[in-house]
C-alpha cells in the first residue's frame, strides 16, 4: 500500500484545519451557503434530507485494516454505527452534523485518508480494479498509476471548478473490473510491440440521464506521459465543456457534440505543447510509487485443496462464487458479500468492519479492497485458510455466497436518504433479494448483475446492469423502468429499455419473469446477458407484457 510521505501527511492535516476554519466562517455568517457549498462539497460533504452526509475517499479501493478500524470508530462516534460503501470506492456516512465534520477529517488524516474532492465539479476519487496486484491477467498494477493520478489531481489549482464532476478509472489491462468505459476518462494498461507499458485512453464515458460509452482517443500513451495527457484533456474540457446546462456539462456531451476526432485533435494539440514539460514522469518517481505496491510476503502453500477437507455445502457454494483465482499459487482472492438478506446493499456495520479488519490481519496481510460492486475484498488469502475465514465471516453475516449472482445487487441509497432521488431503491432491492432467496436456484441462474438507481443520475450504474432498474416519479407515484443487456466490463454496453415502467411491488415478478425466459431459452453455459445479446430484447418483452395489453 502507499505510505504517505511527509508532504502527503502535511497536506491532509492542513486541509482538515482549513475546513475547520471554513465551517466556523459558515456558522458566523462570513460565508453564505452559495459560497460555502463548493467548499464543503470539495471536502465530500452533502446536505441531505435528514442530516449531512460525508463521502470518504478510498483511493483505488485499497484499505488497510488500520484504516478500516478508523472508519468503524468514526461511524460509531459520529454516526449511527454503520457506513455505506458506494460504486465509486467511497464510504458514505449518512447521519452527521456539520459541526463534527472538521474533527472527522482530522481523524481520517491520522490514518492517511481524506474526503478531498469526493464531491463537487472537480476530479473525483480515482478508482481502479479491486483485484489489482492479485489478478493474474493484469499487465501492471493499476494502483501505482492511480496513486500517481491521485496525487496530481489532489488540489490541482486549475481544475477545481470544472463544468461538472470528473471521474477517472484505471484497469490493469486484462478483464475490465473497473468499468472504465463509463468514466469521463478510462485508462487501460496496455503493452506495445516494444514491450513498453502505456495506456489506452478512453474519453467521454458516463451514465446519468444520457448514458454513453467512452471513445478511445489514443491507442497507446507511453506511461511517462500520463499526467501531461490527462492535463491536456482536462484543460480542453475546462474551457470547452458546457456550463449553460448542468445536464449537458459532462465531458461525454462535449465529446458527443464535437465528435471524438475533434476532441482527440484538440487534446493532442494541447499535449504537444506540454508533453515534455515538468509533468513528464521521471523513472525515479514511478519507482518511488511502485515500491509502495510490492507484493506481500507470499508463502509456499502445500496444503491440500480445502474442498477435500470441508464438505459443508455452504462452504462449497461460497467457494464457487466468492473465491477467485490469484496470480500467486496457493492463494485466492475472496469477495466478502455486503449483500446479505435484509441488508441494504453496500452497508456494513462498525462491528462487521472491526471483524473484517481482524480477519484481514489474520488472513490477508492486513489488506482490504472495496469493489465498485459494493462488496469488500480480501485480496490475498491462503487457500488452506479459506474454511476458517468462511466460518468467521458467517458468524457476522458476511459469508453470503452470492458474489456475481442475482442477489449481489448494486443499489444507490435512493429516496430513503438522497435529496436527488425520485424513487426508493433500497426497498426494491430488498424485495428482489427476498424473492430470490433460494441459493440453489441462484447458483443455477448464474452470473446476473442487477443494478437499481433511484433517479436518472444513475449512481447504481443501472444502464450497465444485465438487468437495470431505474426509479422514476410521475404525479407523485413511484415507478420503475427496466433495461436488459447492459454490461460494464470489456464488452461494455448500455442496456435497452424493455417497455413501459412498473410499480415497485411488481419488480420481483418482473425479475422472475425475465429469469424464466432466460432459463427457458439459454444455451449451454450462456449467461443472462449473453442470451440478451443473442436474441435481443423481444422474447423478454413478449413475456413481460403478454397479459397487459392495456398498460
Amino acid at each position: 500500500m502507499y505510505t504517505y510521505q511527509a508532504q502527503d501527511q502535511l497536506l491532509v492535516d492542513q486541509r482538515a484545519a482549513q475546513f475547520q476554519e471554513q465551517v466556523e466562517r459558515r456558522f458566523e455568517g462570513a460565508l453564505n451557503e452559495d459560497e460555502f457549498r463548493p467548499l464543503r462539497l470539495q471536502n465530500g460533504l452533502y446536505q441531505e434530507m435528514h442530516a449531512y452526509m460525508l463521502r470518504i475517499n478510498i483511493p483505488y479501493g485499497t484499505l488497510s485494516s488500520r484504516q478500516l478500524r478508523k472508519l468503524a470508530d468514526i461511524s460509531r462516534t459520529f454516526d449511527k454505527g454503520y457506513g455505506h460503501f458506494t460504486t465509486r470506492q467511497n464510504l458514505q456516512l449518512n447521519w452527521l452534523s456539520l459541526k463534527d465534520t472538521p474533527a472527522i477529517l482530522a481523524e481520517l488524516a491520522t490514518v492517511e485518508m481524506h474526503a478531498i474532492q469526493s464531491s463537487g465539479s472537480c476530479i473525483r476519487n480515482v478508482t481502479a480494479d479491486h483485484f489489482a496486484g492479485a489478478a493474474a491477467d493484469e499487465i501492471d498494477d493499476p494502483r501505482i498509476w492511480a496513486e500517481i493520478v491521485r496525487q496530481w489531481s489532489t488540489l490541482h489549482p486549475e481544475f477545481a471548478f470544472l463544468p461538472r464532476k470528473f471521474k477517472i478509472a484505471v484497469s490493469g489491462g486484462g478483464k475490465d473490473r473497473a468499468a472504465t468505459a463509463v468514466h469521463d476518462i478510462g485508462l487501460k494498461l496496455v503493452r506495445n510491440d516494444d514491450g513498453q507499458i502505456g495506456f489506452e485512453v478512453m474519453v467521454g464515458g458516463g451514465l446519468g440521464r444520457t448514458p454513453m460509452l467512452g471513445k478511445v482517443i489514443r491507442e497507446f500513451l507511453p506511461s511517462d506521459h500520463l499526467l501531461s495527457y490527462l492535463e491536456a484533456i482536462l484543460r480542453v474540457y475546462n474551457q470547452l465543456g458546457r456550463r449553460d446546462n448542468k445536464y449537458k456539462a459532462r465531458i461525454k456531451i462535449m465529446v458527443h457534440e464535437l465528435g471524438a476526432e475533434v476532441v482527440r485533435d484538440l487534446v493532442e494539440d494541447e499535449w504537444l505543447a506540454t508533453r515534455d514539460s515538468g509533468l513528464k514522469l521521471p523513472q525515479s518517481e514511478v519507482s518511488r510509487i511502485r515500491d509502495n505496491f510490492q507484493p506481500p510476503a507470499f508463502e509456499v502453500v502445500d496444503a491440500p485443496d480445502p474442498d477435500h477437507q470441508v464438505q459443508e455445502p455452504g462452504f462449497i457454494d461460497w467457494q464457487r462464487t466468492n473465491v477467485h483465482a490469484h496470480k500467486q499459487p496457493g492463494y485466492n482472492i475472496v469477495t466478502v458479500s455486503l449483500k446479505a438478506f435484509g441488508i441494504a446493499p453496500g452497508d456494513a456495520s462498525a462491528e462487521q468492519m472491526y471483524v473484517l479488519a481482524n480477519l484481514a490481519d489474520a488472513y490477508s496481510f492486513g489488506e482490504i479492497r472495496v469493489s465498485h460492486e459494493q462488496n469488500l475484498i480480501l485480496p490475498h488469502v491462503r487457500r488452506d485458510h479459506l474454511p476458517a475465514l468462511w466460518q468467521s465471516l458467517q458468524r457476522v453475516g458476511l459469508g453470503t455466497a452470492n458474489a456475481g449472482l442475482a442477489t449481489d445487487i448494486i443499489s444507490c441509497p435512493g429516496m430513503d436518504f438522497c435529496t436527488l432521488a425520485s424513487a426508493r431503491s433500497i426497498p426494491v432491492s430488498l424485495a428482489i433479494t427476498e424473492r430470490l432467496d433460494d441459493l440453489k436456484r441462484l447458483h443455477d441462474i448464474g452470473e446476473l448483475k442487477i443494478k437499481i438507481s433511484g433517479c436518472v443520475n444513475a449512481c447504481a450504474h443501472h444502464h450497465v446492469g444485465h438487468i437495470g432498474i431505474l426509479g422514476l416519479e410521475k404525479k407523485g407515484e413511484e415507478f420503475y423502468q427496466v433495461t436488459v443487456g447492459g454490461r460494464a466490463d470489456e464488452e461494455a454496453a448500455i442496456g435497452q429499455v424493455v417497455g413501459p415502467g412498473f410499480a415497485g411491488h411488481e419488480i420481483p415478478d418482473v425479475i422472475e419473469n425475465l429469469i424464466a425466459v432466460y432459463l427457458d431459452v439459454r444455451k449451454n453455459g450462456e449467461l443472462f446477458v449473453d442470451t440478451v445479446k443473442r436474441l435481443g430484447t423481444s422474447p423478454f418483452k413478449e413475456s413481460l407484457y403478454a397479459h397487459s395489453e392495456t398498460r
Partner: protein
Amino acid sequence: MPILKHGEIIIDDWQNLADDEVLPEEGLAIVSLARWQTDRDQLINARRPLGLRLTGKVDVSEIAADLDHFDLVAVSFPGIADGRGYSQARLLRQRFGFTGELRATGPLVRDVFAALERVGFDAIEARDQAEAEAWSVAVGRITVRLQSDITAPEMSSFQTAAE
C-alpha cells in the same frame, strides 16, 4: 471591491470602460474584447496603457498576438463555480508569455486565492475588505503542492523522489 496585488491591498488606478463610453483623456482604461476588436486601431493610436477584459468562453489563443498591447488582462469569475479563468490564466502566462498584470475579477473569497496565484494571477479582486485582509493567512493554509504550476514548474512530489 478591494484589489490585492501580490497580496497587498492597492489603490486601483484602472477604470473599467463600458463599450459605449468614450476613452477618457488620461488614466488607465480596461476595455472589453468586443471593444478591442472594433476599435483596435483607434485604441492603439491613443498610445495609452490599456487593459483587456475577458469574460466567459474566450479562446485566449485568439488574442495571443495582441498581448503586447496590454499592460493588464482582467479575467472575470462570474461565480466561484465557474473555473474557466484558471485555464485561461495559465495559458496567458505559460503558453503566450503575458508578463503584465493578470487580474482575477470577482467577487472572490479567500479560499481560492492560493489557486488563483498558482495559475498565474498576480492581482485579485476580493469580495470585501475582510477577505482582502485575510490574504496572508488564506494562502498559507495549504503549503503542499502536488502539481507543477506557474510558481513551481517542476512537480514538488518528483523533487522529493529525487532527494
